[in-house]
Each structure stands twice: as C-alpha cells, then as structure tokens.
C-alpha cells in the first residue's frame, strides 16, 4: 500500500520569506512524486514531479522540491513567498506497480502568506 503524510495542516509565512511545505511518503519500490496546488473554488493544478534523476526538481511559479530517499520525503520549497501563493497544497505518490497510474494524496496543507 502507498501513503502520504503532510504533517502540517497550515503553514503561515510572511511575504518574501522562504516557504516550505513538508511531505513524507511510503511506497513499495521507487516512487513517482507530485505536488499540486488548489486555489479557492478551483480544481488542482500540477506544480512539479519527481520521476528519476536529479533530486532537486524545479516546477511552476518558482517552486521546487527535494527528493530525499533515505528520509522518504519530498518537501516543497519556494525561496521567497508571495501573497498569491496562498492556497491549498497537496503531495501525491504513485508506486511503479500502481494499477491504472493510481495516485495517493496527502491530506493537504493550507499555506497563508501574509503581506
């Protein structure tokens, strides 16, 4: 079975400060890892993914994430947060043998960036 944990329900950060959203996962074998963002009353938008290769992955809107196999983590980061980054963030994992490309999502982390 595959699972994802996002230990923080909410993260508060001042505009201009670094933003980190934590994610740990459990899966058999090598993982495919994803981050999505959801703005109010919208569907999920894809931010970035780790499939293989470089552990530091760069994505949309200045976000990046670091894959750490030993800690089974895939934390999302942004060097300088914007007020417009305030949204709900989801981490997701898929194992190589997941049927139908099935994803398992974490519970989500709400990010609030204050001016």
């Amino acid at each position: 079975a595959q699972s994802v944990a996002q230990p923080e329900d909410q993260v508060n950060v001042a505009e201009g400060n670094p933003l980190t959203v934590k994610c740990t996962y459990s899966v058999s074998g090598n993982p495919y890892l994803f981050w999505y963002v959801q703005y109010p009353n919208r569907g999920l938008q894809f931010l970035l993914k780790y499939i293989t290769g470089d552990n530091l992955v760069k994505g949309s809107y200045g976000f990046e994430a670091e894959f750490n196999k030993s800690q089974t983590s895939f934390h999302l980061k942004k060097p300088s947060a914007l007020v417009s980054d305030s949204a709900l963030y989801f981490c997701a994992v898929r194992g190589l043998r997941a049927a139908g490309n099935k994803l398992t999502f974490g519970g989500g982390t709400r990010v609030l960036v204050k001016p």
Partner: protein
Amino acid sequence: DVKVTQSSRYLVKRTGEKVFLECVQDMDHENMFWYRQDPGLGLRLIYFSYDVKMKEKGDIPEGYSVSREKKERFSLILESASTNQTSMYLCASSPSWRSYEQYFGPGTRLTVT
C-alpha cells in the same frame, strides 16, 4: 492545453435521489479518475477507469458506481444520495504512461439535503 470539464460546478440534491456527475476530457487520455475531497482528508479515490468500459474500485467505492461508454467521458453515479455524500467531487485524466501527471477538472460541489 489539456481540458477536463465537469457538468456542474454546484449541485443540490435531496436524500434518495439518483445523481449523475459527468466528466469529459479532450486529450484522448486512457485513464480517468473520480475523487472526493473533504477537509483534512485530502483527495480519496472513488473509482478509476483505464479503458472504455473498464472500471476499477478505488479506496471508497461504496455508494457509488461509474460508467465509461466513450473514451472521453467518465460518469459518476450516486444511486441513492445520502447526506454523507455531500462533498467536492473532482474528476481527473491522464495518459497511460506512468510518468505523467493527472489533469483535474474544476470540481463539482455537491450538497445532499
């Protein structure tokens, strides 16, 4: 750009009604998914389909069924709606390649009274 559309943004139904939620994608994707989203629980997979007329149960299929008669369309059916099915429902699609992300529709917020 990939486009996934859902038939309604907001829906209000009464307990016991049969409810149909429709999802259409325009990118010829093989895989389609139905999730429900509840606060603190994230997204939970209800059903998915990897081909026309094929379906697989997800993590919470009870009380739901699905239909996929055409590749671009995936319907979620609540046979007899109950108040505990009040939720946000999200449809997604993806190509068959494992490395691809899923593309999501805007969601349908269903309220069952």
